[in-house]
């Protein structure tokens, strides 16, 4: 595919294609993963995420971030087959252990901290900073 090799040369790595896992970043399905099942037109795709609660629907590409994952599915796969494909691929496990997934879960964790936990966090950050600075100062001194 000439166009694709050209695009790859330009540095594009993630393509909107059947089976591409997308992260929805806007609207009612904000924060969920879904799989592209079909391409409607230049701006929209048909998307479904049975394991994350995304109903089969059209999704504007503006609301979406492409992930690295592509599922080996056919165009227009129905929910049952899609679910099976997702589970075989272990999408949840792969995504949650990726740095993207970790960042998301950290963000959620921070948002859910109680006042006491925030206080503990503050103390820990101070400790870390102290240890770091001490180590840096020591290293500087040793380098002289």
């Amino acid at each position, binding site marked *: 595919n000439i166009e694709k090799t050209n695009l790859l040369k330009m540095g594009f790595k993630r393509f909107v294609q059947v089976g591409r896992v997308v992260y929805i970043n806007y609207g009612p399905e904000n924060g969920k993963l879904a799989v592209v099942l079909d391409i409607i037109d230049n701006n929209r795709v048909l998307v479904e995420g049975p394991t994350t609660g995304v109903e089969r629907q059209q999704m504007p590409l503006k609301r979406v971030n492409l992930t690295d994952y592509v599922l080996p599915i056919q165009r227009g796969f129905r929910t049952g087959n899609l679910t099976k494909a997702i589970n075989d691929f272990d999408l949840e496990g792969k995504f949650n252990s990726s740095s993207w997934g970790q960042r998301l879960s950290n963000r959620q964790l921070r948002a859910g901290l109680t006042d006491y936990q925030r206080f503990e966090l503050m*103390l820990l950050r101070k400790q870390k900073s102290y240890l770091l600075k001490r180590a840096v100062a020591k290293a500087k001194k040793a380098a002289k």
Partner: protein
Amino acid sequence: MPGKGNRVRNEELRPGIRAMGRSEALNKTGRYRFFKKGAAGKKVAGKPEAAPAKEPKFYPAEDLPQPIKQRNPNASKKIAKLRKSIEPGTVLIVLAGRFRGKRVVFLKQLEGSGLLLVSGPFEVNGVPVRRVNQAYCIATSTKVDLSGAQYPSELNDEFFARIENDEKLKPNAEAYAAWLAKRKEVQKKVDAVLMKSIAKEPLLKEYLAARFKISRGDAPHLMKF
């Protein structure tokens, strides 16, 4: 008079219309011979006429506002409903007043005023046994275990009455010293109970000693407490 033949005393000319009106018909009956004369003869006792009300000498130039009559003056004498998130032992963040930002321990709600009884404890953050309004507190989810705790019976709303205007107390040095000593004693008793529970949790004392503050980038409306 018993009717003679077909003669009717008060002929009905048309349906509902008689020949003689009321007084004429009454006079025709002859019962007037037996009516008692004068006021004593009145069969229906009239209501005794009330003495005419004395007109006030002075009217205000415009209508004065009248207080709205309450249907049930005792209905709203309840104290403020305690928020579900506030239980004995809850750490509260005080939002206003001298101790704003301080984290204090909630003891109980006072019956008379509905205000919350809190204590720093005093030795941890300088907040004495004090009353605080629920509306000026954030309830955190941190709780100190106060199960089975008992507080001195003097801790009610009268205990917190101001003494500035109390002539017997403020200027009298002895009475004032006694009042102060009483306060300290109550504080000690309350804090003794609290400190035992606070010591169980590792960083709780430091937490209570620190003030709550908001810095740049903080979004209090998104924070969970």
